[in-house]
């Protein structure tokens, strides 16, 4: 394709715009001053130690992993069979059902969190944990339906029919024939859903209580009163996790599968 100077310059500026602010966080995380400053004076790893020793951050990190993992597993359990049924059989109102499964993406996250808080915590009197789990299930489900759905639609079902004719039960054929064939779609969907649950802020804003706070929410409340490099250090650690995750996906599926 044809290169044009103007476009190239804009593209380079865009990538600088995207990465310089993140580089700034990395640099400030090593500063010795009690408040964030740039350029930094001195060099220390104390903020990393402080971040990793913080009870609040570590427990909210664990909660984010647990909620993200459980919610995505639940979404897989519900979503994978549903995606199969919608792709494989003629279901009346198929498009309507599919758009209903994708409907959580249309509702603003803050509204989802707010209404869940009102309903589950205030009216049903259930613990915040359940509300968080269901909220994050709602975040995950559309990714499962969309990504697994498209692999289910591309699958060649004649091999499943062969298994049936050879006397395999429907359930066994689904588990032993269909699932292995869409496994890369399931893995990609899991990754996408998990990352989006882990990073989500608005759904969790209302759903937090004593000892039950997700990592982004506890970062936000810490930043309300503090402006020190602890946040920079945590940001760098999370970015390292993201890089590790991207490497994992690139090595297994190729990044194009989740883009």
């Amino acid at each position: 394709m044809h290169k044009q100077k103007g476009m190239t310059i804009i593209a380079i500026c865009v990538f600088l715009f995207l990465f310089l602010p993140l580089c700034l966080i990395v640099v400030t995380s090593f500063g010795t001053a009690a408040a964030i400053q740039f350029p930094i004076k001195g060099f220390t790893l104390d903020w990393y130690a402080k971040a990793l020793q913080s009870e609040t951050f570590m427990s909210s990190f664990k909660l984010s992993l647990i909620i993200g993992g459980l919610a995505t597993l639940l979404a897989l359990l519900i979503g994978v069979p549903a995606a199969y049924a919608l792709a494989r059989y003629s279901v009346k109102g198929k498009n309507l059902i599919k758009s209903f499964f994708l409907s959580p993406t249309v509702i603003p996250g803050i509204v989802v969190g707010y209404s869940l808080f009102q309903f589950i915590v205030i009216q049903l009197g259930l613990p915040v944990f359940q509300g968080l789990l269901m909220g994050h299930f709602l975040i995950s489900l559309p990714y499962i339906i969309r990504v697994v759905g498209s692999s289910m639609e591309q699958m060649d079902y004649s091999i499943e029919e062969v298994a049936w004719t050879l006397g395999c039960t429907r359930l066994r054929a689904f588990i032993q024939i269909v699932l292995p064939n869409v496994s890369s779609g399931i893995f990609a969907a899991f990754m996408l859903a998990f990352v989006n649950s882990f990073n989500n802020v608005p759904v969790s804003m209302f759903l937090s209580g004593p000892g039950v706070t997700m990592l982004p929410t506890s970062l936000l409340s810490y930043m309300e009163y503090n402006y020190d490099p602890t946040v920079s250090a945590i940001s760098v650690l999370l970015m390292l996790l993201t890089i590790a995750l991207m490497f994992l996906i690139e090595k297994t599926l190729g990044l194009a599968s989740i883009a």
Partner: protein
Amino acid sequence: MNKNVPYFIVAPGIILLLFFLMLPLINSIWPTLFAGQAVMFGNYLDFFKDSYNLSIFWRTIRISGIVTLITILLGIPTAYFIAGVNKKWRGILMALTLFPLLTNSVIRSFAWINILGKSGVVNTLLIKLGIIHQPLNLLYTEFAIIVGSVYLFLPTMIMTLVGVMETIEGETLEAAETLGASPFSAFCKIVLPLSVPGTIVGSILVFTGTLTAYTTPQLLGGNQKMMMSTFLYQKATTLGDWNSASVLAFIMIVVTLIVMKLLNSIAKRVDRRELNRA
């Protein structure tokens, strides 16, 4: 196999969505339609009569529009550039675009506090250069929210556009240039029209994303420059005004749906025009 089996398989998902999405929404919003008012939607008329509420409503729409426009203007050249480099570089650039998308929005907004804050990079630099003596108030302004939101959603726009640009065949462009078109006019007359549908899809994502984002307006706009999502949070928690919060919730849903419908119908019209021409 029993004809009803597929319905049994999709049923658990439908039940969970009804119980944990629809029911809570109705539970929150239903009372606002009738309660405490002589006329239906009275709560909504009251909301739009208040000039402070209106200013937040229009700020939200305005910022979302500006952010969408900027991401289009920056996204098209960048996506065109990415689609044009060789395969290896394209992979690298796509990974670089994906990375911010997978990074928490709290981190990405925090970056801009470091840049725009009172003791941030911009103010430090300007003071050192002697251009200003007092730090500028860059944070907690509409400008800060716009920069932060562009930063948040530009990768989304680029990703969407690269997908479209890749389908435009290089031969078409070569043909145009062989026939005497300059690279720039080939870009304007071939690439731009063909990327309209992708731009619309990207615009839906960016506009509704900015409209409903919470982190960025919270961190970069604060209480001074509230948007609908931060306003909703403040109404519900600090002020305990559940009625107003629910009114805001419904307005946000309706605006999101209207924007999606509107842009989708434009996309459909564009598609039909392309078909007629072919």
